[in-house]
Protein backbone atom coordinates (compact mmCIF):
# COMPACT_ATOMS: atom_id res chain seq x y z
CA UNK A 1 0.00 0.00 0.00
CA UNK A 2 2.82 2.34 0.97
CA UNK A 3 4.59 1.54 -2.32
CA UNK A 4 1.44 2.46 -4.25
CA UNK A 5 1.16 5.76 -2.39
CA UNK A 6 4.79 6.52 -3.21
CA UNK A 7 4.18 5.56 -6.86
CA UNK A 8 1.03 7.72 -7.02
CA UNK A 9 2.95 10.62 -5.52
CA UNK A 10 5.78 10.18 -8.04
CA UNK A 11 3.31 10.04 -10.95
CA UNK A 12 1.54 13.21 -9.94
CA UNK A 13 4.74 15.01 -9.04
CA UNK A 14 5.95 14.10 -12.54
CA UNK A 15 2.72 15.50 -13.99
CA UNK A 16 3.76 17.81 -16.78
CA UNK A 17 0.88 19.52 -18.60
CA UNK A 18 3.27 21.23 -21.02
CA UNK A 19 4.19 17.80 -22.44
CA UNK A 20 0.71 17.74 -24.01
CA UNK A 21 1.43 20.92 -25.93
CA UNK A 22 4.98 19.83 -26.80
CA UNK A 23 3.73 16.56 -28.28
CA UNK A 24 0.89 18.05 -30.32
CA UNK A 25 3.33 18.24 -33.24
CA UNK A 26 3.51 14.42 -33.26
CA UNK A 27 -0.28 14.22 -33.26
CA UNK A 28 -0.49 16.59 -36.19
CA UNK A 29 2.31 14.98 -38.21
CA UNK A 30 1.00 11.48 -37.39
CA UNK A 31 -2.52 12.26 -38.58
CA UNK A 32 -1.26 14.04 -41.71
CA UNK A 33 1.04 11.09 -42.51
CA UNK A 34 -1.71 8.54 -42.05
CA UNK A 35 -4.11 10.49 -44.29
CA UNK A 36 -1.39 10.78 -46.96
CA UNK A 37 -0.59 7.04 -46.87
CA UNK A 38 -4.25 6.05 -46.94
CA UNK A 39 -4.83 8.61 -49.71
CA UNK A 40 -2.07 7.02 -51.80
CA UNK A 41 -3.56 3.56 -51.17
CA UNK A 42 -7.03 4.81 -52.23
CA UNK A 43 -5.63 6.27 -55.47
CA UNK A 44 -3.73 3.06 -56.27
CA UNK A 45 -6.82 0.97 -55.51
CA UNK A 46 -8.99 3.12 -57.79
CA UNK A 47 -6.37 2.76 -60.55
CA UNK A 48 -6.17 -1.02 -60.03
CA UNK A 49 -9.95 -1.22 -60.21
CA UNK A 50 -10.01 0.82 -63.42
CA UNK A 51 -7.25 -1.20 -65.12
CA UNK A 52 -8.41 -4.66 -64.13
CA UNK A 53 -12.16 -4.15 -63.82
CA UNK A 54 -14.29 -6.90 -65.33
CA UNK A 55 -15.95 -5.78 -68.49
Amino acid at each position, binding site marked *: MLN*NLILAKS*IFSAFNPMA*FVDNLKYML*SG*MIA*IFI*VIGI*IIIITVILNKIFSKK
Partner: protein
Amino acid sequence: MDFLMDILKELSFLVENLSAFVEAGGWKYLAMWAIGGVLIYLAIRHDMEPTLLLPMGFGTILVNIPSSGAITRFTETGEVISEGALTTLFNAGIANELFPLILFIGIGAMIDFGPLLTNPKLMIFGAAAQFGIFFTFCMASMFFTTNEAASIGIIGAADGPTAIVVANKLLGADNDITGAIMVAAYSYMALVPIIQPPVIKLLTTKKERLIRMPYEQKQVSKLTKILFPIVITVVAGVVAPESVSLIGFLMFGNLIRECGVLNSLSDTAQKVLANLITIFLGITIACQMEASKFLNVNTLLILGLGLFAFIFDTAGGVIFAKFLNLFLPKGKKINPMIGAAGISAFPMSGRVVHKLGLKEDPQNFLLMQSIGVNVSGQIASVIAGGLILSFFMK
Protein backbone atom coordinates in the same frame (compact mmCIF):
# COMPACT_ATOMS: atom_id res chain seq x y z
CA MET B 1 -1.92 -40.07 19.81
CA ASP B 2 1.73 -39.94 18.74
CA PHE B 3 0.63 -41.08 15.32
CA LEU B 4 -1.80 -38.14 15.08
CA MET B 5 0.86 -35.71 16.23
CA ASP B 6 3.22 -37.04 13.55
CA ILE B 7 0.60 -36.48 10.87
CA LEU B 8 -0.05 -32.95 12.15
CA LYS B 9 3.68 -32.23 12.07
CA GLU B 10 3.87 -33.52 8.52
CA LEU B 11 1.02 -31.24 7.55
CA SER B 12 2.51 -28.18 9.22
CA PHE B 13 3.73 -26.99 5.82
CA LEU B 14 0.11 -26.18 5.00
CA VAL B 15 -0.05 -23.73 7.89
CA GLU B 16 3.33 -22.32 6.90
CA ASN B 17 2.19 -21.83 3.31
CA LEU B 18 -1.02 -20.16 4.47
CA SER B 19 0.82 -17.79 6.79
CA ALA B 20 3.32 -17.05 3.99
CA PHE B 21 0.35 -16.29 1.72
CA VAL B 22 -1.03 -13.74 4.20
CA GLU B 23 2.40 -12.23 4.93
CA ALA B 24 3.20 -11.91 1.24
CA GLY B 25 0.14 -9.67 0.75
CA GLY B 26 -2.59 -12.27 0.31
CA TRP B 27 -5.16 -9.60 -0.59
CA LYS B 28 -3.21 -8.87 -3.76
CA TYR B 29 -3.46 -12.49 -4.87
CA LEU B 30 -7.15 -12.52 -4.00
CA ALA B 31 -7.65 -9.34 -6.05
CA MET B 32 -5.87 -10.91 -9.03
CA TRP B 33 -7.94 -14.09 -8.74
CA ALA B 34 -11.04 -11.88 -8.77
CA ILE B 35 -9.75 -10.10 -11.89
CA GLY B 36 -9.08 -13.48 -13.53
CA GLY B 37 -12.58 -14.60 -12.51
CA VAL B 38 -14.13 -11.48 -14.06
CA LEU B 39 -12.29 -12.09 -17.35
CA ILE B 40 -13.49 -15.71 -17.43
CA TYR B 41 -17.03 -14.57 -16.54
CA LEU B 42 -17.07 -11.98 -19.35
CA ALA B 43 -15.78 -14.58 -21.80
CA ILE B 44 -18.30 -17.29 -20.93
CA ARG B 45 -21.38 -15.38 -19.79
CA HIS B 46 -21.22 -12.45 -22.23
CA ASP B 47 -19.25 -14.11 -25.05
CA MET B 48 -16.76 -11.21 -25.07
CA GLU B 49 -13.64 -12.23 -27.06
CA PRO B 50 -13.74 -15.63 -25.30
CA THR B 51 -10.75 -16.91 -27.27
CA LEU B 52 -8.58 -14.31 -25.56
CA LEU B 53 -10.28 -13.36 -22.32
CA LEU B 54 -10.73 -16.94 -21.12
CA PRO B 55 -7.05 -17.94 -21.46
CA MET B 56 -6.03 -14.56 -20.02
CA GLY B 57 -8.37 -14.98 -17.06
CA PHE B 58 -7.18 -18.48 -16.29
CA GLY B 59 -3.56 -17.47 -16.80
CA THR B 60 -4.04 -14.60 -14.34
CA ILE B 61 -5.09 -17.06 -11.68
CA LEU B 62 -2.26 -19.41 -12.63
CA VAL B 63 0.53 -16.85 -12.23
CA ASN B 64 -0.89 -15.38 -9.03
CA ILE B 65 -0.71 -18.49 -6.93
CA PRO B 66 2.04 -17.76 -4.37
CA SER B 67 5.36 -19.22 -5.54
CA SER B 68 3.63 -20.31 -8.76
CA GLY B 69 5.70 -22.79 -10.74
CA ALA B 70 4.15 -21.51 -13.98
CA ILE B 71 6.46 -18.49 -14.03
CA THR B 72 10.19 -18.23 -13.48
CA ARG B 73 11.03 -17.44 -9.86
CA PHE B 74 14.10 -15.55 -8.72
CA THR B 75 15.97 -15.11 -5.47
CA GLU B 76 16.36 -11.61 -4.04
CA THR B 77 19.79 -11.46 -5.67
CA GLY B 78 18.28 -12.27 -9.08
CA GLU B 79 19.33 -15.91 -9.38
CA VAL B 80 16.84 -18.26 -10.99
CA ILE B 81 15.17 -20.64 -8.53
CA SER B 82 13.07 -22.46 -11.12
CA GLU B 83 12.12 -21.91 -14.76
CA GLY B 84 8.39 -21.48 -15.41
CA ALA B 85 6.68 -22.74 -18.54
CA LEU B 86 4.73 -19.52 -19.09
CA THR B 87 7.87 -17.38 -18.82
CA THR B 88 9.56 -19.67 -21.36
CA LEU B 89 6.57 -19.26 -23.70
CA PHE B 90 6.62 -15.50 -23.13
CA ASN B 91 10.30 -15.24 -24.05
CA ALA B 92 9.84 -17.53 -27.05
CA GLY B 93 6.73 -15.92 -28.48
CA ILE B 94 5.92 -12.47 -27.14
CA ALA B 95 9.21 -10.88 -26.07
CA ASN B 96 10.46 -11.38 -29.64
CA GLU B 97 7.02 -10.52 -31.16
CA LEU B 98 6.74 -13.89 -32.90
CA PHE B 99 3.22 -14.82 -31.72
CA PRO B 100 1.51 -11.53 -32.67
CA LEU B 101 3.17 -11.53 -36.08
CA ILE B 102 2.24 -15.14 -36.83
CA LEU B 103 -1.29 -14.38 -35.67
CA PHE B 104 -1.34 -11.60 -38.26
CA ILE B 105 -0.92 -14.22 -41.02
CA GLY B 106 -4.10 -15.88 -39.78
CA ILE B 107 -5.94 -12.57 -39.49
CA GLY B 108 -4.83 -11.58 -43.01
CA ALA B 109 -6.13 -14.88 -44.35
CA MET B 110 -9.50 -14.24 -42.68
CA ILE B 111 -10.01 -10.75 -44.10
CA ASP B 112 -11.96 -10.25 -47.28
CA PHE B 113 -10.93 -6.88 -48.72
CA GLY B 114 -13.81 -7.13 -51.22
CA PRO B 115 -16.11 -4.54 -49.56
CA LEU B 116 -13.17 -2.15 -49.32
CA LEU B 117 -12.05 -2.65 -52.92
CA THR B 118 -15.62 -2.11 -54.07
CA ASN B 119 -15.65 1.32 -52.43
CA PRO B 120 -12.03 2.38 -51.72
CA LYS B 121 -13.07 5.88 -50.58
CA LEU B 122 -14.30 4.29 -47.33
CA MET B 123 -10.66 3.82 -46.39
CA ILE B 124 -10.44 7.46 -45.37
CA PHE B 125 -12.49 6.69 -42.24
CA GLY B 126 -9.89 4.13 -41.20
CA ALA B 127 -7.37 6.98 -41.15
CA ALA B 128 -9.66 9.36 -39.23
CA ALA B 129 -10.37 6.78 -36.54
CA GLN B 130 -6.69 6.59 -35.58
CA PHE B 131 -7.08 10.01 -33.94
CA GLY B 132 -7.49 8.37 -30.53
CA ILE B 133 -3.96 6.90 -30.73
CA PHE B 134 -2.25 10.24 -31.19
CA PHE B 135 -4.51 12.21 -28.85
CA THR B 136 -4.06 9.63 -26.10
CA PHE B 137 -0.32 9.75 -26.66
CA CYS B 138 -0.43 13.51 -25.96
CA MET B 139 -2.56 12.93 -22.85
CA ALA B 140 -0.33 10.11 -21.58
CA SER B 141 2.80 12.20 -22.12
CA MET B 142 1.68 14.39 -19.21
CA PHE B 143 2.18 11.42 -16.84
CA PHE B 144 4.69 9.14 -18.55
CA THR B 145 7.92 9.30 -20.56
CA THR B 146 7.57 9.79 -24.33
CA ASN B 147 8.12 6.12 -25.23
CA GLU B 148 5.76 4.94 -22.49
CA ALA B 149 3.13 7.44 -23.65
CA ALA B 150 3.49 6.28 -27.28
CA SER B 151 3.05 2.65 -26.18
CA ILE B 152 -0.04 3.59 -24.18
CA GLY B 153 -1.46 5.57 -27.12
CA ILE B 154 -1.20 2.51 -29.37
CA ILE B 155 -3.86 0.79 -27.22
CA GLY B 156 -6.15 2.94 -29.40
CA ALA B 157 -5.12 0.86 -32.40
CA ALA B 158 -7.69 -1.61 -31.02
CA ASP B 159 -5.33 -4.25 -32.28
CA GLY B 160 -3.65 -6.57 -29.78
CA PRO B 161 -0.75 -7.73 -32.00
CA THR B 162 0.14 -4.14 -33.00
CA ALA B 163 0.04 -3.03 -29.36
CA ILE B 164 2.35 -5.88 -28.34
CA VAL B 165 4.87 -5.23 -31.12
CA VAL B 166 4.99 -1.45 -30.55
CA ALA B 167 5.20 -1.72 -26.74
CA ASN B 168 7.90 -4.39 -26.96
CA LYS B 169 9.98 -2.37 -29.42
CA LEU B 170 9.67 0.92 -27.52
CA LEU B 171 9.85 -0.36 -23.95
CA GLY B 172 11.16 -3.91 -24.00
CA ALA B 173 9.15 -6.91 -22.85
CA ASP B 174 10.31 -6.64 -19.22
CA ASN B 175 8.99 -3.15 -18.65
CA ASP B 176 6.50 -2.93 -15.79
CA ILE B 177 3.78 -1.26 -17.86
CA THR B 178 3.97 -3.58 -20.90
CA GLY B 179 1.63 -6.08 -19.24
CA ALA B 180 -0.99 -3.45 -18.46
CA ILE B 181 -0.84 -2.21 -22.08
CA MET B 182 -1.38 -5.71 -23.48
CA VAL B 183 -4.23 -6.41 -21.10
CA ALA B 184 -5.91 -3.07 -21.84
CA ALA B 185 -5.58 -3.59 -25.62
CA TYR B 186 -7.22 -7.01 -25.55
CA SER B 187 -9.83 -6.24 -22.90
CA TYR B 188 -11.09 -3.10 -24.60
CA MET B 189 -11.27 -4.93 -27.95
CA ALA B 190 -13.69 -7.28 -26.24
CA LEU B 191 -15.61 -4.34 -24.80
CA VAL B 192 -16.15 -2.59 -28.16
CA PRO B 193 -19.92 -3.42 -28.13
CA ILE B 194 -20.19 -1.64 -24.78
CA ILE B 195 -17.82 1.30 -25.37
CA GLN B 196 -18.81 2.43 -28.86
CA PRO B 197 -22.65 2.73 -28.89
CA PRO B 198 -22.94 5.47 -26.23
CA VAL B 199 -20.17 7.52 -27.90
CA ILE B 200 -21.82 7.16 -31.32
CA LYS B 201 -25.23 8.13 -29.94
CA LEU B 202 -23.79 11.08 -28.09
CA LEU B 203 -22.19 12.48 -31.25
CA THR B 204 -24.99 11.85 -33.76
CA THR B 205 -28.59 12.96 -34.09
CA LYS B 206 -31.40 10.48 -34.77
CA LYS B 207 -31.75 12.01 -38.24
CA GLU B 208 -28.09 11.27 -38.97
CA ARG B 209 -28.37 7.71 -37.69
CA LEU B 210 -31.28 7.15 -40.08
CA ILE B 211 -29.27 8.09 -43.20
CA ARG B 212 -29.37 5.21 -45.67
CA MET B 213 -26.38 4.32 -47.78
CA PRO B 214 -27.36 2.09 -50.69
CA TYR B 215 -24.68 -0.51 -51.33
CA GLU B 216 -23.62 -0.83 -54.93
CA GLN B 217 -22.32 -4.33 -55.62
CA LYS B 218 -19.36 -4.17 -58.00
CA GLN B 219 -17.24 -6.99 -59.28
CA VAL B 220 -13.60 -6.79 -58.24
CA SER B 221 -11.21 -8.69 -60.46
CA LYS B 222 -9.04 -11.46 -59.03
CA LEU B 223 -5.90 -9.68 -60.20
CA THR B 224 -6.85 -6.58 -58.19
CA LYS B 225 -7.37 -8.74 -55.10
CA ILE B 226 -3.94 -10.32 -55.62
CA LEU B 227 -2.13 -7.04 -56.29
CA PHE B 228 -3.78 -5.19 -53.38
CA PRO B 229 -1.83 -6.86 -50.50
CA ILE B 230 1.45 -6.48 -52.40
CA VAL B 231 0.85 -2.80 -53.16
CA ILE B 232 -0.20 -2.04 -49.56
CA THR B 233 2.95 -3.70 -48.23
CA VAL B 234 5.19 -1.69 -50.55
CA VAL B 235 3.45 1.67 -49.92
CA ALA B 236 3.27 1.26 -46.12
CA GLY B 237 6.81 -0.13 -46.06
CA VAL B 238 8.27 2.81 -47.96
CA VAL B 239 6.51 5.40 -45.76
CA ALA B 240 6.99 3.64 -42.41
CA PRO B 241 9.65 0.92 -42.74
CA GLU B 242 9.13 -0.08 -39.11
CA SER B 243 5.64 -1.27 -40.03
CA VAL B 244 6.89 -3.77 -42.63
CA SER B 245 6.82 -6.79 -40.34
CA LEU B 246 3.29 -5.96 -39.14
CA ILE B 247 1.75 -5.06 -42.48
CA GLY B 248 3.83 -7.66 -44.34
CA PHE B 249 2.60 -10.60 -42.25
CA LEU B 250 -1.00 -9.36 -42.44
CA MET B 251 -0.83 -8.97 -46.22
CA PHE B 252 1.03 -12.25 -46.67
CA GLY B 253 -1.92 -13.99 -45.01
CA ASN B 254 -4.28 -12.16 -47.36
CA LEU B 255 -2.21 -13.06 -50.42
CA ILE B 256 -2.41 -16.75 -49.44
CA ARG B 257 -6.19 -16.33 -49.31
CA GLU B 258 -6.59 -14.49 -52.59
CA CYS B 259 -4.03 -16.21 -54.81
CA GLY B 260 -6.36 -19.15 -55.36
CA VAL B 261 -3.66 -21.82 -55.48
CA LEU B 262 -2.99 -22.16 -51.74
CA ASN B 263 -6.45 -22.95 -50.43
CA SER B 264 -5.28 -25.52 -47.94
CA LEU B 265 -2.63 -23.12 -46.54
CA SER B 266 -5.27 -20.40 -46.35
CA ASP B 267 -7.59 -22.74 -44.44
CA THR B 268 -4.80 -23.72 -42.07
CA ALA B 269 -3.79 -20.09 -41.46
CA GLN B 270 -7.41 -19.06 -40.78
CA LYS B 271 -8.25 -21.92 -38.47
CA VAL B 272 -5.47 -24.10 -37.08
CA LEU B 273 -2.64 -21.54 -37.03
CA ALA B 274 -4.79 -18.68 -35.71
CA ASN B 275 -6.37 -20.89 -33.04
CA LEU B 276 -3.07 -22.35 -31.87
CA ILE B 277 -1.41 -18.96 -31.56
CA THR B 278 -4.48 -17.50 -29.85
CA ILE B 279 -4.38 -20.20 -27.18
CA PHE B 280 -0.72 -19.52 -26.43
CA LEU B 281 -1.03 -15.75 -26.78
CA GLY B 282 -3.85 -15.38 -24.27
CA ILE B 283 -2.36 -17.50 -21.54
CA THR B 284 1.14 -16.13 -22.11
CA ILE B 285 0.04 -12.50 -21.86
CA ALA B 286 -1.25 -13.38 -18.40
CA CYS B 287 2.41 -13.91 -17.50
CA GLN B 288 2.56 -10.11 -17.22
CA MET B 289 -0.33 -9.99 -14.77
CA GLU B 290 1.54 -10.81 -11.61
CA ALA B 291 0.08 -8.95 -8.64
CA SER B 292 3.40 -7.26 -7.90
CA LYS B 293 3.54 -5.75 -11.39
CA PHE B 294 -0.15 -5.24 -12.07
CA LEU B 295 -1.74 -3.88 -8.90
CA ASN B 296 -0.55 -0.31 -8.87
CA VAL B 297 -1.64 3.20 -9.76
CA ASN B 298 0.14 3.04 -13.13
CA THR B 299 -2.10 0.17 -14.25
CA LEU B 300 -5.24 2.11 -13.32
CA LEU B 301 -3.96 5.13 -15.20
CA ILE B 302 -3.11 3.01 -18.27
CA LEU B 303 -6.53 1.34 -18.24
CA GLY B 304 -8.14 4.78 -18.01
CA LEU B 305 -6.05 6.14 -20.88
CA GLY B 306 -6.78 3.01 -22.96
CA LEU B 307 -10.51 3.59 -22.55
CA PHE B 308 -9.91 7.23 -23.47
CA ALA B 309 -8.11 6.08 -26.67
CA PHE B 310 -11.05 3.89 -27.76
CA ILE B 311 -13.54 6.70 -27.09
CA PHE B 312 -11.52 9.22 -29.10
CA ASP B 313 -10.95 6.74 -31.96
CA THR B 314 -14.71 6.35 -32.21
CA ALA B 315 -15.26 10.08 -31.92
CA GLY B 316 -12.57 10.79 -34.55
CA GLY B 317 -14.28 8.58 -37.13
CA VAL B 318 -17.80 9.87 -36.42
CA ILE B 319 -16.83 13.55 -36.37
CA PHE B 320 -14.84 13.18 -39.60
CA ALA B 321 -17.90 11.65 -41.32
CA LYS B 322 -20.05 14.53 -40.05
CA PHE B 323 -17.44 16.97 -41.37
CA LEU B 324 -17.52 15.34 -44.83
CA ASN B 325 -21.32 15.53 -44.82
CA LEU B 326 -21.04 19.34 -44.76
CA PHE B 327 -19.71 19.17 -48.33
CA LEU B 328 -21.80 16.32 -49.71
CA PRO B 329 -25.04 16.93 -51.61
CA LYS B 330 -28.37 15.68 -50.27
CA GLY B 331 -28.85 12.04 -51.17
CA LYS B 332 -25.10 11.38 -51.08
CA LYS B 333 -24.67 11.96 -47.34
CA ILE B 334 -22.79 9.41 -45.27
CA ASN B 335 -24.27 7.82 -42.18
CA PRO B 336 -21.72 9.16 -39.65
CA MET B 337 -21.99 5.98 -37.59
CA ILE B 338 -19.83 4.13 -40.11
CA GLY B 339 -16.90 6.39 -39.16
CA ALA B 340 -16.85 4.63 -35.79
CA ALA B 341 -16.07 1.33 -37.52
CA GLY B 342 -12.66 2.69 -38.55
CA ILE B 343 -10.98 1.08 -35.55
CA SER B 344 -9.17 -2.18 -35.99
CA ALA B 345 -11.38 -4.37 -33.80
CA PHE B 346 -12.53 -6.60 -36.64
CA PRO B 347 -15.35 -7.52 -37.15
CA MET B 348 -16.87 -6.38 -33.84
CA SER B 349 -16.84 -2.69 -34.66
CA GLY B 350 -18.44 -3.19 -38.08
CA ARG B 351 -21.17 -5.31 -36.53
CA VAL B 352 -21.80 -2.79 -33.75
CA VAL B 353 -22.45 -0.05 -36.31
CA HIS B 354 -24.63 -2.36 -38.41
CA LYS B 355 -26.73 -3.31 -35.37
CA LEU B 356 -27.09 0.32 -34.29
CA GLY B 357 -28.33 1.17 -37.80
CA LEU B 358 -30.87 -1.65 -37.70
CA LYS B 359 -32.04 -0.55 -34.27
CA GLU B 360 -32.87 2.92 -35.60
CA ASP B 361 -34.36 1.64 -38.85
CA PRO B 362 -34.88 -2.12 -39.44
CA GLN B 363 -34.51 -1.52 -43.19
CA ASN B 364 -31.18 0.31 -42.98
CA PHE B 365 -28.44 -2.18 -43.83
CA LEU B 366 -24.98 -0.71 -43.19
CA LEU B 367 -23.09 -4.00 -42.87
CA MET B 368 -21.10 -3.90 -46.10
CA GLN B 369 -20.07 -0.27 -45.65
CA SER B 370 -19.19 -0.67 -41.97
CA ILE B 371 -17.22 -3.86 -42.61
CA GLY B 372 -15.36 -2.05 -45.43
CA VAL B 373 -14.46 0.77 -43.03
CA ASN B 374 -13.56 -1.76 -40.33
CA VAL B 375 -11.13 -3.53 -42.67
CA SER B 376 -9.54 -0.21 -43.55
CA GLY B 377 -9.14 0.40 -39.80
CA GLN B 378 -7.09 -2.78 -39.67
CA ILE B 379 -4.71 -1.43 -42.30
CA ALA B 380 -4.63 2.12 -40.88
CA SER B 381 -3.91 0.97 -37.32
CA VAL B 382 -0.90 -1.04 -38.49
CA ILE B 383 0.36 1.99 -40.42
CA ALA B 384 -0.22 4.14 -37.31
CA GLY B 385 1.84 1.63 -35.30
CA GLY B 386 4.62 1.90 -37.87
CA LEU B 387 4.50 5.70 -37.73
CA ILE B 388 4.71 5.66 -33.93
CA LEU B 389 7.77 3.41 -34.19
CA SER B 390 9.31 5.68 -36.83
CA PHE B 391 8.81 8.72 -34.57
CA PHE B 392 10.10 7.29 -31.32
CA MET B 393 12.35 4.30 -31.98
CA LYS B 394 15.89 5.53 -31.78
